[in-house]
């Protein structure tokens, strides 16, 4: 069977984009096998099919894996794997209700974003405030401009991620 790997980076808040990507791949005859390492997506050749992919972020679920997966299986979702805190599920569109997702109200979607915030964003903010920003200031003070621009670039990148995440949260909240 033919397989292929792709390299894709979806940042913390881009799980919807990732879901769509996996669905498109399956529609074009590439079934998702796993994601590993640093954004390496593994696929195997298959008969093209419309399959819905969904990501959940629930630490409590990962800690109580058997019961968590059981509930999803009962509801017809196949559990695939966990990756950096996200759990991956899929269900053929032919067996699903129209536009079925694993969340059925905006409240629970918001709660998932809150869990992502606590699990992924908050530790990053702490990391930045305690390490990156003091380092940046330090580099500028010592006229180490190359290093400073490196820290500066990373800081800008992450600030952009934080802002995008916040925008997504408030867009959902305002709906």
């Amino acid at each position: 069977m033919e397989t292929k790997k792709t390299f894709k980076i979806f940042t913390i808040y881009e799980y919807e984009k990732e879901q769509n990507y996996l669905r498109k791949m399956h529609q074009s005859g590439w079934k998702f096998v796993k994601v590993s390492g640093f954004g390496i997506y593994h696929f195997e050749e298959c008969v093209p099919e419309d399959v819905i992919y969904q990501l959940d972020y629930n630490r409590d679920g990962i800690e109580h894996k058997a019961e968590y997966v059981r509930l999803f299986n009962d509801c017809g979702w196949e559990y695939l794997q966990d990756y950096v805190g996200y759990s991956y599920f899929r269900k053929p569109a032919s067996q699903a209700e129209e536009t079925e997702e694993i969340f059925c109200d905006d409240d629970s979607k918001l709660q998932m974003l809150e869990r992502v915030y606590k699990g992924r964003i908050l530790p990053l903010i702490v990391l930045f405030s305690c390490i990156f920003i003091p380092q940046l200031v330090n580099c500028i003070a010592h006229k180490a401009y190359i290093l400073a621009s490196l820290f500066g670039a990373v800081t800008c990148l992450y600030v952009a991620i934080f802002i995008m995440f916040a925008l997504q949260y408030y867009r959902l909240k305002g709906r």
Partner: protein
Amino acid sequence: MNAHIKKVYVPMTETAFYILLCLKKPNHGYGIVQRVEQMTDGAVRLTPGTMYGSLSKMEKDGLIQFIREEDKRKIYKITDLGSEVLQIELNRIARLYRNAQEEM
């Protein structure tokens, strides 16, 4: 009842309402999904991401309690606090309905 519970659950989502209502009798997440589908003739279909998140949150908030596990399914039932919150919500909905009847 503390302010947090009031803020989060009064008023509550349709999902939360049906979960509390179903847990008057011990049941597990998937059991609730099926029961609600039956009760509403398929109009309300609860989904596992929402269900798992709501059950953990309600357990943490003390509205429901875990009783036992059966075949990898966690069985819960409503607590006194949960019943109290459900009653407040029921009263609110009854008032909505009454007012609507009078105005229409």
